[in-house]
């Protein structure tokens, strides 16, 4: 909503009549009057710009991402997001929560190898026989950055504050809904009492804040934790500086109990444009570029040939799926929306499933930067990942799809399939206008389903949430980032997640509500034995697969890139092959080892200085010469 277009053009009244009377009067010899003031001002402004240009040589420091004069090793990460808040009670964006993961300890962390829960602020956790009381042993060797000891008292205060809902529920209250009471009987013992059993107690991703600092805050709901630096914390890094929309600076915590990070400083620098961020990586101004959500194939391919740059193309955390509207309804069963009734037939849903060539989509749309989809949970979470058996699999089989549709009563009449009521089978699919993958896949679906005799309208919107929550769609492109603990992505398909009122946004993903699935969900939530719980989770995935409600087409890779002349090594998650930015732990930045050599940009910029001066000098000299020539040519007028 600008009052001007991209160029700042505005409509202005101009007169069209032009007069072409050339007047070349010889004037009496007089001297040149001093130039009009605006000429002087123009010169001054130009001089300012030129000064700035020439200032480059004097200040080469900003160019280097590492190896500054004082020997400080800095790792600069280009990120596209800006910080929403630095308060762990309100922050929701990935960048902000990543900063919190690095600056505050959580009770547990996830193993970089296989994502199982490992000790962090808590060294040990166990449940009572009735499954309702969990006792955490808090480590005694963790200190806040202001020197005070971090204890169970801090953890209890944090959880109680979230449970108090004094404007503190925004970010993390989903973790505490089932909590009855949280206490800290001793500095190393945290006790959480539950209302009913909950197996996710080793996956409480809540930053623990220092009580002695935060209890002095007047109104936590209005406090963004961005005024006093450094911010007191106990993670591997200390939040030391923040400039809105520019950067977040973190300093290494030398006293971190797991060992100090190898880099001295970690900077998250805002690059709103991904191409500009890639340019900064090429130049060496940043050490790492996190794609949002991934580098485009063009960007990745362009970087592959570059010296000293490594493109990390590892399995990601997301799944990319087609969701089928199962008939939107409220929690108490009131139906709403206008999902196509044909989709209530499982055979029709499965037929749609069978006519999607997932491999082609991975090759053509994702250009190989994805893994072919199967079960609901991506394979990187090996504990919970599930694959259909050979006879259960709904692979690409248009003939079987046609047969299923025939059975369901949708027979081909000419080139179109029609129902018993004589109406042709036409579907709509909701697509995110901002996601090029959605549009490209939409084209393939149109073709494949068209061959079957099914019509498809690809409905691309900037914001799909309105028709989605109104249940006014037949199919939709869907996708979620999965966490090491799958509880959340499973929970969004339970009846409890349905909206209370029609069309109201709710936790539900796709209005799925099924008794068998809900039963399995409750069971896995109460199952404390990891192997048994994993088995239950896989049964749920199997049910989801058969239902045809969620067709997981692909698991897109995390495509990101870094400079090997600045980062010698860095841990991906899972460590064998995985992502770097947006991990579930702090492993990548904590483990990153600086390269010993100087960054390639260092040499470049000092030569740059000299050439910069030379260029400026040539421009000045050229301008001067031109001016002199012009003066000579108009000497006639001036005499």
């Amino acid at each position: 909503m600008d009052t001007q277009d991209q160029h700042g053009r505005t409509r202005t009244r101009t007169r069209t009549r032009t007069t072409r009377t050339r007047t070349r009067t010889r004037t009496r010899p007089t001297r040149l009057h001093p130039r009009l003031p605006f000429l002087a001002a123009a010169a001054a402004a130009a001089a300012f710009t030129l000064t700035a240009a020439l200032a480059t040589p004097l200040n080469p420091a900003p160019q280097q991402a590492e190896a500054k004069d004082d020997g400080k090793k800095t790792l600069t990460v280009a990120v596209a997001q800006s910080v929403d808040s630095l308060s762990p009670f309100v922050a929701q964006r990935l960048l902000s929560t990543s900063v919190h993961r690095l600056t505050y300890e959580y009770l547990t962390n996830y193993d970089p190898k296989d994502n199982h829960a490992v000790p962090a602020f808590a060294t040990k956790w166990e449940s009572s026989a009735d499954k309702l009381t969990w006792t955490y042993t808090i480590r005694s060797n963790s200190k806040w950055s202001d020197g005070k000891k971090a204890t169970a008292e801090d953890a209890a205060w944090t959880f109680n504050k979230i449970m108090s809902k004094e404007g503190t529920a925004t970010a993390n209250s989903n973790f505490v809904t089932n909590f009855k009471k949280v206490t800290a009987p001793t500095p190393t013992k945290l006790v959480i009492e539950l209302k009913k059993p909950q197996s996710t107690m080793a996956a409480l991703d809540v930053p623990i804040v220092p009580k002695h600092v935060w209890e002095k805050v007047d109104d936590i709901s209005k406090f963004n934790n961005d005024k006093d630096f450094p911010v007191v914390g106990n993670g591997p890094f200390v939040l030391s500086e923040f400039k809105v929309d520019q950067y977040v600076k973190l300093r290494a915590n030398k006293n971190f109990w797991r060992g100090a990070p190898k880099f001295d400083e970690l900077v998250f620098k805002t690059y709103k444009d991904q191409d500009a961020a890639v340019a900064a990586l090429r130049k060496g101004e940043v050490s790492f570029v996190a794609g949002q959500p991934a580098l485009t194939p063009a960007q990745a391919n362009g970087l592959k040939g570059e010296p000293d740059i490594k493109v990390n193309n590892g399995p990601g955390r997301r799944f990319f799926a087609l969701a089928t509207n199962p008939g939107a309804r409220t929690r108490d069963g009131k139906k709403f929306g206008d999902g196509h009734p044909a989709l209530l037939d499982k055979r029709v849903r499965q037929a749609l499933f069978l006519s999607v060539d997932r491999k082609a989509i991975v090759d053509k749309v994702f250009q190989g930067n994805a893994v072919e989809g199967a079960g609901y949970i991506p394979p990187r979470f090996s504990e919970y990942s599930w694959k259909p058996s050979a006879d259960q699999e709904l692979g690409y089989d248009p003939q079987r799809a046609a047969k299923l549709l025939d059975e369901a009563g949708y027979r081909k009449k000419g080139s179109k399939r029609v129902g018993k009521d004589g109406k042709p089978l036409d579907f709509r699919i909701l697509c995110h206008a901002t996601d090029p993958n959605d549009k490209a896949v939409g084209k393939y679906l149109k073709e494949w389903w068209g061959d079957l005799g099914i019509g498809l309208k690809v409905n691309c919107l900037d914001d799909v949430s309105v028709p989605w929550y109104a249940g006014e769609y037949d199919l939709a492109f869907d996708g979620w980032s999965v966490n090491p603990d799958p509880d959340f992505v499973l929970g969004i398909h339970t009846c409890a997640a349905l909206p209370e009122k029609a069309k109201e946004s709710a936790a539900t993903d796709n209005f799925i509500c099924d008794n068998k699935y809900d039963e399995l969900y409750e069971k896995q939530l109460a199952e404390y034995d990891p192997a048994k719980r994993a088995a239950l989770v896989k049964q749920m995935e199997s049910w989801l697969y058969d239902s045809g409600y969620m067709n997981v087409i692909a698991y897109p890779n995390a495509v990101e890139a870094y400079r090997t002349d600045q980062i010698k090594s860095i841990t991906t998650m899972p460590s064998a092959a995985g992502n770097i930015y947006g991990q579930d732990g702090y492993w990548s930045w904590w483990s990153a080892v600086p390269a010993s050599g100087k960054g390639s940009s260092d040499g470049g910029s000092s030569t740059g200085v000299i050439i910069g001066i030379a260029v400026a000098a040539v421009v000045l000299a050229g301008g001067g010469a031109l001016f002199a020539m012009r003066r000579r040519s108009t000497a006639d007028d001036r005499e």
Partner: protein
Amino acid sequence: MTAAGNNPAAILAAEAEAARADRGAPDGPAEQAGPRGRRGPRARDTTAYLQYVAGKLGGALVSMFAVLVTSFFLFRLIPGDPVKQMTGGRRVSSEQLAAMRTEFGLDQPVWQQFTDYCGNVLTGDFGTSYQFHAPVLDKITEALPATLWLTGTAYILYTLIGIWLGTRTAWRNGRLGDRFHTGLALTLYSVPSFWLGLLLIITFSVGMGPLPGLFPTGGMESGDESGFAYVVDVAHHMVLPVLTLVAVGYAQTLLVMRSSLLDEMGGDYLTTARAKGLRDDLVRRRHAVPNALLPTVTLMFVNLGTVVAGAILVETVFSWPGLGGLFYQALSVPDLPLVQGLFFVFATAVILMNTVADVIYPLLDPRVGR
């Protein structure tokens, strides 16, 4: 400077001659520029002027009210649930969603929200941003300096360059210089600013061939400097974005200035000035340009009003932390209090500048407002 230029007597003579020439010019601005040179009672003029100003101010107030109403309802037409958009892809419970809706007041009826909003704006309170959990006014004042630095510098440069080149090309129209500058300006004008910005980044930031990277790829500062070094650092970061804005922006002023000066060039008063023996330069500067400046002044004020709104695309490409970028972020949620606040501020700036232009027109050209 010529040798004569150092002679104070010659300067004085030239001044005196010019002054005489001005008074003599039949359509010259000096004669009509102020009440001083006009016949008739001064008081009547002043009253007429005040009436004119009052009318303009009244119009501005009406516009402001329209903006107030529009800013509230317009953005509620954007599809999308702010709560859902903000929590998209994250783990949230239904309770959390409900809590957020209550916090933002979205559970209130629309008329209630509107009356609250109007009352608050009148007391200078634009509410709290949904996504940043901070007062809207704080977010705006935080980003305003960055925008003013960037677009303000660009504004001064493209206005000056536009006027200067416009004058030159009109005065020597049809010649090679005119054709070259008009062509170049129009070409740059039609270039998408984000594309030009990216080209500049690739060429001058990253470096190309023997050309090394001279400027930073983005941002406003490198974050390590203070004092004078900080000022130089910011200036260094400003070069490419300012260059982009100037390149795509100066054509407008150039063309308006050029065409209005061409209009004036056939004027008899110029012939008179020449007949008196005035040097060509003086004829242009003292007689032609002041009369041709009015459309350019209009444009200058319109542009000045939009300086505040920043430049969304250029700010994005160069990761400039200004209002344009903030507006984009606000729209994508939609962060209603923030878009409303920004829209109000942007519109106010434009209305204010237009009003100022209206008010000073009669002082520049007494034909206006009579």
